[in-house]
């Protein structure tokens, strides 16, 4: 396991509980009226192929640093209350949770925008790589130009 520098960021092999994470974001937090969560899961199909599992590799140290920079940028751009990012690594199966981003704010617009911003930048800047196991064998996923374009719009 990686040593995590911030309680807002966790890279872990184990699963997480959406309910527990949201409870922590809301605990003794009566000033934030808006809570937005994103959960990314392993899909059964990708580009027409049946997926059986995904294996996630990352670059310990750089992962935490790049996520910390993304969160810092989000906090400067929007009025946020609390933030949490969890990303799992290792082998994951169909329906498994991969990533969680949770954001609270006084107002919904900030919570929605910051959550989507964090996911968009995580997708193109955080050093994670997915290897897909399908009936046709294993292959590393290619990055998508659409993800680059989406991040560039912020």
């Amino acid at each position: 396991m990686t040593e995590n520098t911030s309680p807002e960021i966790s890279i872990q092999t184990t699963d997480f509980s959406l309910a527990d994470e949201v409870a922590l974001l809301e605990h003794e937090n009566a000033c934030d009226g808006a809570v937005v969560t994103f959960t990314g899961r392993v899909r059964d199909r990708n580009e027409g192929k049946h997926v059986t599992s995904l294996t996630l590799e990352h670059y310990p140290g750089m992962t935490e640093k790049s996520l910390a920079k993304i969160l810092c940028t989000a906090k400067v751009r929007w009025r946020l209350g609390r933030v949490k990012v969890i990303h799992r690594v290792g082998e994951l199966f169909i329906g498994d949770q991969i990533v969680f981003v949770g954001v609270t704010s006084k107002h919904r617009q900030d919570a929605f925008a910051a959550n989507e911003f964090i996911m968009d930048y995580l997708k193109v800047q955080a050093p994670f790589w997915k290897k897909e196991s399908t009936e046709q064998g294993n292959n590393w996923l290619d990055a998508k130009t659409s993800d680059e374009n989406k991040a560039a719009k912020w």
Partner: protein
Amino acid sequence: MIKVVFFAALREQLNCSELSLSSENLTTIADLKAELASKDDKWQQVFANSALLSAVNHDMVNSEQAIEAGDEVAFFPPVTGG
């Protein structure tokens, strides 16, 4: 010395996750790439890929980035997390 690490498809292609090089004659990431590419045809081919990303001490950088002894340099394919 400069510590060099490789990830994901790149690590598998090179069959190497980490190596160390003397920092002598290596001023930038571009120098380091040229040095690694000179190893053999396989390394030449891998480092010809312009999509390759580089990081120095956990920050993404471009090829003009200066490097020095003690740095940790990483090379990897475009990221695909999330």
